[in-house]
Structures are given as C-alpha cells and as structure tokens.
C-alpha cells in the first residue's frame, strides 16, 4: 500500500501573539516546528510502513522554508517528499488548501491511505483533512487514536465523547489523528538527517499539479478573515477566606460599593 501523510509547518507556540494594529500574527523570533498532530500522524504511518513494508510519501504546502518539515519527515523514515510551494497558494483558506493538497495527492499517484493531524496548532480549524477527503471523494475517519491494517481492511480506533469507537474502511480512505497529552515527538539521528538528503524531494507549483488559479490563494478562498484579536483577559477574581458569614458580608460590601445592590 501507499500512504500519503499531509503535514504542516507551524510556529512553535500555542501562545500566539497578535499585532493589535495590523491584526496579524507576530511570527518573528518564534521558531517553526512540524505541527505535533501531524508529527503523530507521520509516526503512525511510519509504524505501518515498518510493519507491512508500505511506502510513505509526505506532502506539505507552504513557503520554501517549509522544506524543513518535509526533510524532517524524510529523516524520520518517509520515502518521498513533496512541497507545494507557489505564490499562487499564499493566503489560501482551508477550502483552497484542501483543493491544492487534493490536486497534489492526485499527482503523487495511487494512494491508499491518507493521514493527517486532526488540526494544526496555529489555526485550530480541523477542516483541512476532511476537506481533502471531500475534494477526492473518498471516505474519512476523523479523531483516530490508533490505526492498523489487516489485508485490505483499515482498522481505526476513533475517539468519541466518553470512549472510543472501532471503525473499519476499505482504501482509499483519509484518517485524521489525535494524540495523547504525554506524546513526545520522535527526532531523527544525525545520520538519518544526513541520509534524508538522498531521498526524492519535489517542489511543485500550482501549474505542476494542474490547480486552477481561481480556486487558489486569497481570491479562491470563500473565508475572508475580517479581524483577528485576542479575547479580552478576564479580571482577577477576589478570594475570601474565613467563615461563610464573614465571606458573605465581604461580598455584600463589594456589591454595594459597585452599586449591584442598594
């Protein structure tokens, strides 16, 4: 079988800083990493490769520097890497990104299983994986904790509220992966990094994958971001200790002072 893993480069910070004047993210000084959900999805795919001798191709979309996450995936064991990089992709929302990734995957050739992280830690939309399944017209299983393959059966353990569900699919299928809280991403050895330079790596433009310009970038995106702003910080709560009677009296005093009561 042939597995494709969709990966994304994200800023290494869950604490996103926003420039209040321009409404854009401040990325300067924040190092970039492989989105941890994608890292987990990649490791799940590589485990299947090890067990069943599958081929694994990774695909990412981003500026030229996003090559580093593709090379990281190659160093971790993926066989081939693809980076969709073109100014035409800039500003794409999840719909346009799904469209481009689906086109890229079609160009890769016959793919049986597509993995992606449940979401990226920068945008948190969790839309791109399902969007690609929709674009390709194939089934999807989202929020998977674990995946195995038995012959032509893809077996996924999916997380649901209060437990999990076992689902089965026939390829081609798209799976989005969630990860446990204590997940520690694997990192490659020096030799593996050095070896990754010898693996096939392709940079494809919009024209290379036959993507129509009107479906790409800002103008191809149905979602237009109006404004980004940090939610207002909550004011600090006042805490009282002592007996119930004393605390209630203190609270009443404040309510009176703030004109909540007469």
């Amino acid at each position, binding site marked *: 079988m042939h597995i494709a893993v969709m990966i994304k480069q994200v800023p290494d910070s869950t604490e996103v800083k926003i420039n209040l004047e321009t409404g854009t993210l401040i990325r*300067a*000084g924040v190092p970039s990493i492989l989105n941890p959900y994608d890292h987990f999805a990649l490791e799940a795919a590589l485990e299947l490769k090890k067990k069943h001798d599958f081929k694994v191709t990774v695909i990412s979309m981003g500026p030229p520097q996003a*090559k*580093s996450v593709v*090379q*990281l995936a190659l*160093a971790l064991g993926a066989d081939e890497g693809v980076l969709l990089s073109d100014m035409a992709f800039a500003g794409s929302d999840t719909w346009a990104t799904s469209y481009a990734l689906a086109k890229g995957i079609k160009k890769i050739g016959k793919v049986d299983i597509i993995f992606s992280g449940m979401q990226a830690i920068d945008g948190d939309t969790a839309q791109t994986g399902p969007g690609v399944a929709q674009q390709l017209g194939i089934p999807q299983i989202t929020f998977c904790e674990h995946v195995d393959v038995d012959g032509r059966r893809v077996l996924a353990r999916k997380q649901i509220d209060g437990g999990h569900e076992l689902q089965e699919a026939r390829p081609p299928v798209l799976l989005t992966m969630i990860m446990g809280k204590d997940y*520690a*991403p694997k*990192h*490659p*050895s*020096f*030799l*593996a*990094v*050095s070896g*990754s*330079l010898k693996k096939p790596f392709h940079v494809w433009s919009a024209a290379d994958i036959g993507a129509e310009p009107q479906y790409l970038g800002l103008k191809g995106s149905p979602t237009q971001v109006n404004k980004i702003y940090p939610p207002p910080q909550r004011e600090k709560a006042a805490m009282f200790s002592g007996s119930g009677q004393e605390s209630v009296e203190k609270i009443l005093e404040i309510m009176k002072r703030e004109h909540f009561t007469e």
Partner: protein
Amino acid sequence: MASMDTISRNLMLDSLKEYAKRRIPYDLLRELDEKNEFPAEILKEMYQHDVLGLHLLMVPAEYGGVSGGTFDIYRVCELLARIDLGIATGVFATFLGTDPLNVGGTEEQKEKWLRRIASENLLVAYGATEADAGSDLVNLRTRAEHVVKNGKIVGYNVTGNKQWISNGGVADLYTILALAPGGPSWFLVERNMEGFSPNKHEDKHGIRLSNTAGLSLDNVYVPAENLIGMEEGKGLLQAQAVFGYTRVMVAAFGLGAGEEALEQAIRYSQQRIQGGGPLSDKQGYTHKLLVPNYVRMEGARSYIEYTSQRLDSGEHGLQTEGAIAKYGASEWGNKAADDAIQALGGYGYTKDFPVEKIKRDIKICCIYEGTSEVLEMTIYRGRWQEHLKSRGRYYLDMADRLDQVHAEEPKAGAHAAALALRALGAVLEECRVQKLTRHQHVTFKLGKLICAAETAAIFSTAAAAKKYSETVRFDREGWQAMARVFAREAALNTALEGLALVQGAAETPGNLADAVNIEAVQAEQKGMIADMDLVAAKLKQTFKAK
C-alpha cells in the same frame, strides 16, 4: 570540509536539544556535578547511531560519518555548552582526539580508524599535555623508541606520562604525542595495550562531568602502522594545523555557556521585583550586568562565524583568527557568567540555580586549548608580523574598509570600529618606534586590544550586511544597536588602554593622544545610553520570563 545546508544543521540541533530536554535535566547534572561523575551512559547513548550519533559529525561521509564542517561543529558545540560544559568536553575530546588522524593520517589509517570510531562509537582522547609540556610542547618527555625486527622498524615502545587528559580514564582509543627518534609524532594507542594505564579522575573546580585523568605509558608496544601519517617528526605540525579549528570549538563553548548564563539572568530579572518594579527595568542593573555582557557575546559570535566560514571555504591554519575567537569568547563568557551570578544575587550563589555551575564550568575555557595568556601572545605575534610586513598599514587598511561599510550602512557601528582600528594601528606603530615590545606585558596587552578592535570590525560588518546569519535572534534594529555598543567600547578601550600602555613603557612621551584620535573616540560615545536602553528592551523581548 564545507558545512551542510541550514535545514540539515537545524534538524540535528533540534534533535540534540530534544534529547537533552528529555534525558539530561538540571537535577541530574547537579547530582553528577556533586559526585564528580562522568555520565558514561549518556555519552554512549548520544553516540548511538539511531539516537544521535553525535561523534559522526567529525567523521567524513566516506568513512561512515556525516561530514560536519566548522560552522556545523561550532553550532553543535555551542548547544552542548548550553546543556553542560562537562558533557561538551567529553564529546570535544573525541573530536580533538580524531583530529591528528583527520589531518595527518594516511588513507589506510583513515579507512581503518575513522571507520572504527564511527561504527564502534569509540570514545577518543587527545594525549598531548604533560606535567612540563602544556602549550609549550617542545618540552615533551614521552619517548617512542624503535622496535626493530630483521632490520625493519616494526613498532615503537612508548614510555612517559600524560596529564590533564579529557576522557583520559574512559576513552577506548588515545592519540598520544611522543618524541620518536625522528621528532614528535602522534601514535594511536588502544586502551587494552599492555603497559598502558590511566590514573585517577581529577577533582576539579568545574566541568566535573568531564573525566580528566593522567595517563601512564610504561613501555607500551605500539605497532608501526599506528604511527599517524607513517612518518616521524610531523607531530607538532599536525597539532598546529588544527588550532584554528579546535579553538573555534572552545570559543563556541565560551559563547554557549556565557549566553546561557545571561539568558537565565535576563529571564530572572523580569520576575524579581525590587523597589517597586522588575530588575529588568532598572538601568543600574541591566546596563552593568546584562547589556555589556550580551553585546560582547554577540561580538564573539560574529567573530566565531567569520572564522568558521573562512575555514569552511577551504582556508587553512587561521591560527591568529582561532586565537582571537577563543580568547574573546572565553574571557567575555567567563565575565558574563560571573555577572549572571551577581544578577541573581543570593539565588545565583546557590546550587539551586544553574548559573553557579556555569560559572565554575566556563573557567576552563580560559585554560584549555591554550590559556588566555598564551592566546594573547599568539594574537600579538600573528598581527605584529602583519603590522611590520605592511609597514604599519594593516589596521589602517582595515579601517578604510570599515569606512566603506559605514558609508553604506551608518547604523552598524562601523565608524566606531574604524576609530578603534586606527587607534590600534597608532599604538602598534608607537610600540615599534619606541621598541616597547621588549616588555612582555606590552605584547600581551596588545593581544587583548587586537582582539577587541578586530571583533568590533567583524561585528559591525556583519551587522551592516543585508542578510543576517541564521543564528541572529534579534531584529536589525536590535542587532545593530549591539554592534554600536560593542564598537564604542572597543574604540574607547583601545585608545585609552593603548595610550596608558605606551605612556607606562616609553621613555620619551610621543604625541600618541592625537594619533589615537582620543577626541573623536570620546565624541563617538554619544548615544551610548540610548543604545543600551534599546538593547535592554530587546533582550527582555527575546528572552521572556518563563
């Protein structure tokens, strides 16, 4: 060897960083430091090919390594020093021990030994130093006598004692410098050879995670094929050939450990409230303990990168440059770590905070691979020759180039750097005219002034460049302010100290005050406080409290 691409290098650095985060927490370092214990398991694990394979950086790809260049090795050394300078020294000793082979080994020797070091993860030690032969290797006492069979030299009997050998007690393979009949030569000695025994592990002030021991060689029989290069008498040349490069590694140690200590102090200063506000907002604190130190470390970084890139582009030797890089980074790093303790006050003086250990550890950088004083002499000797050869134009020409830089980018401190270089040129010339270099003190002090003025020139040039190195963590405004602060300090020190030096040694007073352009140097100090304010703000922004 040329360095690798930025992405590969950064992936390797990330892997090392993640490994250290997972496996080498501060509590463990503190415990090992207290017990004076070498973490053999950690070193072995870091050498495992599927974990990191750290030692492969030194081995060319054709022998199973990854062919790291000087820039790659500088970056890894810097990061290792940020983790622990003792562990860094253990790794460095393998690098250093491998060097005579890399430089002087025959093709067969490289094929055999480099491949073994790579594939068997051998810990290597470099055995040059003896009780009476440190930087001065001509006093070498360890002997290698011919063993002749049927009229043919089949091997050597090596006898002598080595001292202060990093990895001395734990290495698998040793490169030993000994005096053969044909002159000093390097020999490959394996741990299990008869007559070879390491002495006790030293109880040191710092880098206590690094094993340091003496070696006893009592008539150790070494086969002739273990003579590096298969030719006697090449040992000192082989040792010197790599000084430029090995000193860049120690420079990277000073840089990494020094910056790490400062970054911890910068983070601390934002949380510690004194007199109604955080320490990070108080000039009396930041402009004394943090800003000048960080600026000097970034100056050292730019000089290390300048030297690394020249070595990577195929230049050989660069002994003076290696000496400048190491002298600056280790002296300034040592001072930075000292001030980091001061910046943390009582906390900094306890072992609960890593700056205390960093301060003890970093001192070694001023001692090994050439003490600071030996380097002052080396720097002076190298540049004095240039000054004489160029008839006094060496620094004046360099200053002219800095004027060019200033014309294109006036914000990078290039004007102040040019003032420093011209003052230096004038001081050197006055020393020549008045024959002042007969005083050893003068020569060593000149070494110090040369280091600061040249670093200012390189820092300003780097800060004026359109594109910055991948290692710069500040925006253009911040890094240029740092270069200005550095260059002003260098100009002032060169002029004032140079003047004092000449006046202290000369019999007839010259008009050096005019020659060093003291008025211009003083006028150049305008804007210093505003720049230091800016640097303090950038440091706070870059190294936020956790």
